[in-house]
């Protein structure tokens, strides 16, 4: 006997343990899209007059986000551009960039690809030749954020949407808690930026209330042709532990990830008041981008890499 949709008696494609509901394709897609639109509205992520950039890696979350943003931005007459970064990872990035490209073409969204080689002068494969795995990941993250922020601003975009989902959020919240990083925790959230500055493009996270497995299901139903692969350099030992811990808890106590997120949201304002660094960011002496120190992290890292040549 097939499991039936809790709404229409059609064949179920997914079970949502936290709501104890089964959904058919149609009712899952309806519910998924409604939740994303609600999140966008609730945190006022997109307003009239905005120009939105979407960071699209070609993975399930970012491509799913792009599909939804397309509809939301169109209905609000807000321009949307997709940005992808080619870090130069042989045998991995070409395929995901192709997925990003193909989905942008299908949706009619302008697509800009930025490369590490051109913007930074070095690829991730080249960094990996001289660095340990863990370091490679840190370089990659800093360089990618620098490239995206600079490109988005130069293209006149005022917000950059990223595909962070509920799993990412619950992990980040718990990690900051476990590491006793209240300042970092206070800066985290569904919208806004690390810092407030006209030079910094605000981040928005439309999938913040979407469990990761649901974004995978949505991408399959919508035929996005995603491979559920991982970056060959992926190395985040602590996050992996926290991810497993949360998934185990979620399986036994459905709704745990939502509760972690909601608990954080209910104390976020208080955290923000208490743990505000009131730092005025300055412009990096070398590249002119925003920085908390005279020379930004990207430029310091580049310096290290040159030194180690």
């Amino acid at each position, binding site marked *: 006997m097939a499991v039936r949709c809790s709404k229409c008696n059609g064949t179920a494609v997914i079970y949502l343990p936290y709501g104890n509901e089964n959904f058919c394709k149609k009712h899952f897609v309806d519910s998924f899209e409604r939740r994303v639109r609600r999140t966008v509205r609730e945190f006022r992520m997109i307003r009239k007059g905005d120009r939105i950039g979407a960071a699209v890696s070609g993975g399930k979350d970012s491509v799913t986000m792009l599909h939804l943003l397309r509809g939301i931005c169109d209905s609000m007459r807000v321009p949307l551009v997709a940005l992808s970064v080619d870090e130069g990872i042989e045998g991995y990035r070409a395929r995901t960039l192709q997925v990003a490209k193909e989905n942008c073409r299908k949706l009619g969204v302008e697509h800009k690809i930025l490369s590490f080689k051109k913007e930074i002068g070095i690829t991730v494969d080249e960094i990996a030749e001289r660095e340990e795995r863990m370091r490679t990941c840190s370089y990659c993250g800093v360089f990618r954020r620098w490239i995206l922020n600079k490109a988005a601003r130069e293209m006149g975009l005022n917000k950059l949407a990223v595909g962070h989902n509920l799993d990412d959020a619950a992990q980040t919240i718990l990690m900051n808690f476990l590491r006793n990083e209240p300042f970092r925790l206070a800066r985290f959230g569904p919208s806004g930026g690390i810092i407030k500055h006209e030079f910094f493009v605000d981040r928005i996270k439309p999938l913040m209330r979407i469990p990761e497995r649901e974004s995978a299901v949505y991408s*399959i139903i919508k035929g996005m042709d995603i491979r559920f692969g991982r970056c060959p350099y992926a190395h*985040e030992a602590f996050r992996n532990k926290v991810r497993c811990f949360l*998934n185990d808890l979620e399986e036994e106590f459905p709704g745990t990830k939502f509760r972690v997120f909601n608990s954080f949201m209910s104390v976020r304002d208080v955290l923000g008041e208490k743990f505000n660094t009131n730092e005025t960011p300055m412009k990096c002496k070398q590249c002119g981008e925003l920085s908390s120190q005279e020379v930004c992290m990207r430029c310091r890292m580049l310096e290290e890499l040159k030194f180690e040549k």
Partner: protein
Amino acid sequence: MGSFKVKLNGKYAKVRWKNGMRIIDFMHQLCVNRETHLAKKNGRLVSELEEVSAKDRIEIFGVVYGG
């Protein structure tokens, strides 16, 4: 109790099967979490609460990767 061949991330794995078992029971036997894995029955994406009959083709695949 019979044995059943499941495709797990593209490779065949053996699980115990008896009438009335569901995909989630296979997931537990294979030690995979439903938070990170989805299932197809006879090529169609299904709820993991779906029952498995002797002739079904079951595929379980990971969609959430560490790191």
